[in-house]
């Protein structure tokens, strides 16, 4: 698993378009090189979706873990594992970007 800076704040990358259709979160690649094949779309499951919704560029991963652990009454350790797993995948796919490095971040 990729080593993550839990103090980092992430936002959706400009390389993708995230759409919510009938309650389902769909990530559509915008630029080349996001998926393994050319015609892939990504559907994010329930766990992924609640994490995704917190990636607003203002909330650090540590805070995301704490917020979701409280909200869903699960242990912090369990939630951190989910956050690390999901965010790791998103980073690998260049679907999110570090808000600190983004020109739009304040």
């Amino acid at each position, binding site marked *: 698993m990729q080593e993550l800076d839990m103090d980092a704040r992430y936002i959706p990358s400009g390389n993708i378009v995230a759409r919510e259709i009938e*309650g389902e979160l*769909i990530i559509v*690649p*915008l*630029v080349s090189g996001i998926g393994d094949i050319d*015609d892939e*779309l990504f559907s994010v*499951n329930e766990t*992924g979706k609640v994490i995704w919704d917190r990636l607003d560029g203002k909330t650090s991963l540590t805070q995301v873990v704490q917020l979701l652990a409280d909200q869903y009454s699960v242990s912090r350790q369990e939630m951190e594992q989910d956050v690390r797993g999901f965010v790791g*995948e998103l980073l690998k796919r260049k679907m999110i970007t570090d808000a600190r490095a983004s020109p739009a971040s304040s």
Partner: protein
Amino acid sequence: MVNTLASSDYCDTYDLNKSPLFGRRPPLLPSLVIELTERCNNNCVHCYINLPRNDAKAISRELTTGEWKDILNQAAEMGVLAVHFTGGEPLLRDDFAELYLHARHLGMRVLLFTNGRCITPELAEMFSRIPPLEKIEVTVYGMQPTTYDAVARCPGAFDEFWRGVQLLLQRKVPFIVKGALLPQNKGDRERFEAWAQTIPWMEGTPSYSMFFEMRGRRDSGKKNENIAQLRTTPEDGLSVLTRDEIRYRKDMAQFCQKYMGASGIRLFSCGAGLSLSIDAYGIIQPCLRLRMPELCYDIRKGSLKEALTVFFPRIREILAENPDYLERCANCFIKGLCEQCPAKSWSEHGTLDTPVDYYCAIAHEQARYLGLIEPGESAWEVTNGRERVERVINTLLEGDTGKT
């Protein structure tokens, strides 16, 4: 190919064409066909729609960039994941790149039908950088200037087409090619299919349009006479369809399992009105081909949502009344092999429910070949159609597994 995300706890990947994306509830509108213009830089002898590229009247009537963007925004709100840009030649629109990028930034995949002549280095670069996520479909009218230009009736057209596809190849933009089978390019077929095999994104042999449709606007009897002369005969068409015998048998086994059986008196057993098509002037049609004014909806006076949820459900309730249709088409168990539909009836006869003998003959030719009917038999008179279909499917599947 196994994708690492496919087994993830968080994401699944989908090929929109192969997997049901929405397990729970599908989007209100899954896809949208947009005919950006009826104008074309080709003037093909067999075309059902084209107007001259500089047709001033057509240009003045076409929707503006802003109007198209508004429609795309509405479509995105309704869940559209795939938009199909066609024409005429859609790349003739000066704002094509702007509309394409707008659709892609809304999170839509784009399917583009083109003759390739207007593909510039800039457009190829754009498709490379921001891919359409669907293979571009390029129709090829000949493999040399004399044949291509004779079909397109436009000197220099071949050279522009060839430059366009080379640009796509150089930028590695996925595309496939399709042919149009005409007397003018008949001698090019072998060369075309050999070239098609070298295109990395082709799967199998290219498809052909050959059972040409009449003018969808019913705007020219003379052009329709020409089109009728150019149509492939049912016998020749069958030999093209079955040129790859193994593939044909495999495809037909799957096809027969899904689509055979009499359609009955409901005219719209297809997807017309469930998905939507918009012409260049903002008129929403039940499908790309059906342009009967009474069945169309003007988006300038309403919305995509109203068209889909209020207007077209009523259209889909229309029943056939023509006695000839009721005797033949409504009872015909080889419906799946036949291109008869309200759109074809409209373009040929100006009604929704008149049998089109040409398509009927093509369907019967295939049905005889498959063993569904005997020589001289009319499929609508057959009473044990379901039994025959099952027998033929079994035969086709046995052939597929190498049994006799």
